[in-house]
């Protein structure tokens, strides 16, 4: 049986908010522990990368289109395109490739 969806959404909202403000509650000085600092430094990149691949190849009708979008988005981001242009470049890539498959 699934959790009540509104309770689930409230939990999502409250936990996320707590993440944002937790530093304000505890912070008087910066964290000194080097391992924790380093761990937190890598976390956002690792999490987002893990969630992106292979999921992007499963989101599209054809896995090849998703893989191509990954490559195009990475190249666009590498050469300095912003958030929105990168997202659009991915969408256009999938649209064009799936026209031919």
């Amino acid at each position, binding site marked *: 049986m699934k959790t009540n969806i509104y309770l689930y959404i409230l939990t999502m*909202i409250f936990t996320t908010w707590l993440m944002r403000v937790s530093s304000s509650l505890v912070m008087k000085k910066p964290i000194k522990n080097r391992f924790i600092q380093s761990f937190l430094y890598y976390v956002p990149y690792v999490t987002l990368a893990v969630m992106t691949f292979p999921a992007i190849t499963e989101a599209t009708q054809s896995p090849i289109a998703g893989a191509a*979008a990954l490559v195009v*988005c990475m190249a666009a981001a590498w050469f300095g395109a912003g*958030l929105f242009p990168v997202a*659009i470049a991915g969408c256009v890539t*999938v649209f064009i490739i799936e026209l031919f498959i």
Partner: protein
Amino acid sequence: MNEKRKLFIHGYKNGLPIGAGYFAVAVSLGIAARDYGFSALQGFLASLFTYASAGQYMAFNLYNVGGTLIQLIILTIIINARYILMGFALNQRMPEGTPLGTRMLVCTCITDEIFGITIARRGAPSPYYTFGALIAAVPLWALGTATGISMGNILPVSIVSALSVALFGMFIASIIPEGRKDKAILAAIFASFAFSYAFAKLPVISEISSGNRTILLTVLISSVFAALFPRTEGGSDEN
């Protein structure tokens, strides 16, 4: 009073282009949310008050696979760990004696983009500025989500398929520029792709739920990189 008003309006103006980007990406999030069993109202409320792209995507997905509240809390903490870091960075800029309410209001407005425009300004972050940006951007995020959920089934399959990568595009755009600046991050990104793929395909391991695989991989890979390539606040040590 006038100064506060000016800061709010300035934040609001800077938040609008962010909101335009949010809208498009949120449509993609909404399309996913619809598949995961969320109504337009539920998606709208979740987006209006959570406003966390990767975290919401994870949460919607986890709900669909029957995730528990405990799993939701753990994954939300892990996926949004960057908000703690951003919170520390913002608090670092606020002078000693700044009231707790001010600190909390500034940090309540954290998203990747609002953090970006706030930290780019000189001096102590103002809650009027961050709140102005939040008020401009987040309703568009919520509207986009509701649009994706309610229009997802009217749109042609080819459009839905194309839009469904927008969210991943935004993830990629938030990690690659840092990877270009820091080779250790780039290596961590590729290691994450490789292990995530392996964990999704290997027998036995692939039977762990995708939510738990995300936790496991994040903790493992980040720990290994933290041990091998430690960082301090100023950035890399070795150069």
